[in-house]
């Protein structure tokens, strides 16, 4: 019994010595030797087998071993507490372990950012199909067949047998589809992918994204269009952004405007790599919904007025993030994507 005790003590102390410097390991040792089902308890249970004369002595020895193990554990535990005060021998200049998260595509990020601004202004987000009919892409939007105003909308057509289908050249067809199904008042934005047969270069892509907006009600005015787009632009490009609304022409709006913001790089000072000497950057086309468009969807233009606007997502992203080649968005080089 004595030898057994001695052996147990040596083992326990060795184990403590060898244990790693954490409290969980020490706790496991404590349970193993001193716990309710621990080794010392087992020995104590066997005390009945010892001769009565030896009992007190064995009892005393058990207590000594118990105390020794317990004290050694405490000492070690205290040492750990002290050590954890400073990083002992750790080279803090080594890099931390990276927890790599992924990145949303800059086009998604830009769509989200733009959408969130309009959602905060009370807009709803709507989507529509990419494969469209000529009616929704053109006629319903007052873009007649065989008219020079179609030049701005060169279009991919699908190979079909009888019907004519095309890849939408702008997100505006969703406007017409939405109006056919819904009654004013409403305020919607429509993000989506569009296609135009443009040869690809640094600033042109045959596929890109647009966000379209449409607000229709009984009392919607050109001044509302100015107000809403000014809030949007300042939120998107900074509160010191200046705005310029220039007369323009779109078949589906009248009066129409091109919207420019002061160059986000030179702030309108000129001599700049982004705007050249123009000082302004064109970001949006907009206007009051042409009464002909309302008629095409069965709205009474005397009763309702509205404004619409549209912008190219890649263009906004290029300006905002300083991307100088639109192809970067579709190459998907992770060294590019991971910057967003």
């Amino acid at each position, binding site marked *: 019994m004595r030898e057994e005790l001695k052996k147990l003590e040596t083992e326990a102390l060795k184990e403590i010595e060898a244990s790693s410097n954490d409290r969980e390991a020490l706790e496991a040792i404590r349970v193993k030797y001193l716990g309710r089902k621990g080794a010392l308890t087992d020995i104590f249970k066997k005390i009945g087998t010892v001769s009565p004369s030896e009992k007190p002595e064995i009892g005393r020895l058990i207590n000594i071993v118990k105390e020794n193990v317990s004290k050694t554990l405490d000492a070690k535990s205290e040492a750990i507490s002290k050590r954890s005060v400073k990083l002992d021998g750790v080279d803090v200049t080594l890099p931390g372990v990276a927890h790599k998260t992924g990145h*949303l595509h800059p086009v998604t990020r830009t769509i989200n950012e733009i959408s969130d601004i309009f959602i905060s*202004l009370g807009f709803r987000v709507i989507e529509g*199909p990419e494969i469209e009919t000529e009616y929704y892409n053109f006629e319903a939007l007052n873009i007649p067949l065989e008219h020079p105003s179609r030049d701005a909308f060169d279009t*991919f057509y699908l190979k079909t047998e009888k019907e004519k289908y095309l890849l939408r050249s702008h997100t505006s067809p969703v406007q017409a589809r939405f109006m056919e199904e819904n009654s004013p008042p409403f305020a919607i934005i429509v993000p989506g992918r569009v*296609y135009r047969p443009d040869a690809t270069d640094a600033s042109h892509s045959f596929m890109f994204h647009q966000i379209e907006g449409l607000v229709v009600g009984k009392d919607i005015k050109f001044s*509302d269009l*100015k107000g809403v787009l000014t809030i949007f632009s300042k939120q998107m490009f900074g509160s010191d952004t200046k705005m310029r*609304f220039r007369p*323009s022409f779109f078949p589906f709006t009248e009066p129409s405007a091109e919207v420019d913001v002061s160059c986000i790089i030179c702030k309108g000072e000129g001599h700049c790599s982004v705007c050249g000497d123009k000082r302004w950057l064109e970001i949006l086309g907009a206007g009051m919904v042409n*009464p002909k468009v309302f008629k095409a969807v069965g709205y009474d233009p005397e009763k309702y007025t509205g404004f619409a606007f549209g912008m190219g997502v890649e263009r906004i992203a290029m300006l905002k993030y300083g991307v100088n080649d639109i192809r970067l968005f579709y190459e998907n080089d992770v060294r590019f994507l991971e910057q967003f």
Partner: protein
Amino acid sequence: MLISYNWLKEYVDVKLPPEKLADTLTMAGLSVASVKQAGGDYIIEIEVTANRPDWLYYIGVAREIAAITGKRLKVPAIDKKGPGARAQGAEIKIKVEDKSLCPRYTARIMRNVKIGASPDSFAWKLAAMGLKAVNNVVDITNFCLFETGEPLHAFDLDKISGGEVIIRKARKGEKIITIDGTEKILDETMLVIADRDKPIAIAGVMGGINTEVTASTKNILLEAAYFDPVSVRRTARKLGISTESSYRFERRVDEENIIYSSERASSLIKEMALADKGKFFDIGGKAVRKQKIILRISRLVKIIGQEISAPKAKAILSSLGVKANISSKGNIECIAPSFRYDLKNEIDLIEEVARIYGYANIPLTIPGIVEQPLRKSPAMLIESNIRRSMAASGADEIITYTLVGKGLINRAGISDEELVQIRNPLTSEQEFMPPSLITGMLGVMMWNINRKNKDLKLFEIGNVYRKKGADKFSEEKYISIGITGHTPEEWSIKPRPYDFFDLKGMVESVLRNLNITSYEFSAAESGIFSQCAVVKIKGDAIGLVGEIAGETAGNFDIKNRAYIAEIAMGPLIRNASLDNRVRELPKYPSVSRDISILIDKNISNSSIISAIRSASSPILKAISVIDRYAGENIPKEKVSLTYRLEYQDQSKTLEDKEVTEVHSKIVCALEEKLGAKLR
């Protein structure tokens, strides 16, 4: 359209320096693309919108500047003797066969022209427009096109055979060599100017070389006409050409300006080429009754959101050449000038008033936009959720082109049946719409691997397109996830290759984030993958997860093993639930027990788990595989597996006895049903 600053000043007193003028034009809707200094002149490039053909010539632009700046327009005087005799002479007959495509045709005979070079005092204007001087007569017709907006054409009268000029549709297959030296093959939809034998010009598009004015020309016929815009546009498009002339006819020339333009040109020819003015022919040209348009001031204010008085609006419209009168009701009755055929409706006049009043002077207001119940549809919210969970799991989002070549689809091992095809692709690389996101994913992997970005975790949410029978097409949203290479290299952690279970885990995290629990993966076969699993929700297949077949990977330069999943978004969205109800935290501790077994390799984890589940009681809370080993010390056909079972009771602390009872039942079941051996 290019505008020479010096030339422009002949028509209106421009006091503004070029840069200021450019700003003023831009803010009036004549968007200036650039201002370039050229010698002592400035060339202003304006972008003219499709509705304003009256800005395609100097007098038109000057008229606009005069309106904006309050200056007077100076129009060059023409020969006061008027157009001359209108009767047809014996020497030439002019016949318009197609009056709908040519409602107005005029021609002036000029005799004894002295063909020569234009003087420098004239030629510089053509140079400013980027044109080469040809000879005085041709130069004058070009000059007048830019000055008056009316494209003119001069024929060599003596080369017109049979003494006849016929304006007719071309015959199918009829040919003409145009002045650019190329042969054009015509068809019966195209309008031509012809003599007795042959076409001598494609109406409104380009003249023929057979009647071109050359150094030896003695007499000419000067054409000024109105051709149908749609017809000219169609013809030019079919022939694949666009000329200064066709560009203007397509956008509609000012019919009332034809006589002036013709007279202006013949005056100049008389003066510069010393020609005698001969007979003048004028065919067609009925006076059109002009439509009165009413502009309601109330409507004007309602549309633009700014009070503008009737006299102010009237003054603006008058400055633009509109005949405007204030009616007894206080509205404005308008008649648009002929050069503004775009002014047809009230809204057109509202735009003009707003434009000249200045958009900058219209205030900023905020509309009372009505609340919508849902700002984003549940489908959009779920899509955002998926994007976030993908990014959180370390994947970068990609967006790939949805027009690709058939070669790419074939190289990816994807079926090329029922593809959506583009009728008018720019290149064969953009001819088809992909029926799977896997093509795009493989393409992006290749792009990156070739640039030494070898470790990739990527995802895309996008449409795939298929033909569904004759003239029916589907576009369906899918998500693809692709991984290849190794986990990131760290000084403290060894990288390991990505494997099937990394990808499966990403798919599972998407499913769990959407609170979809009723999913399962089972082994499947697919030509795209060397091995793969089909993902099912409630028994319906929603996509595949697998390792890309070696040959396909080779086609895309993928050297490490690559794993791709493609899953339909529709079923994910339908089965997702974004409602999240919190479960009560357990009050009583759980007990963990491990089971290590040796079992036949062909018994799947999912069948072991269902055996465990069916033998246990509700106190079994969770089962996880914590170790799997096959190899040394283990029979070849066997595998060693360790499962950790977690037991817990919501209402009390579990007793050892209870756990042991359930646990041994489980062990029995594994031994008896699956032939497992406890290790």
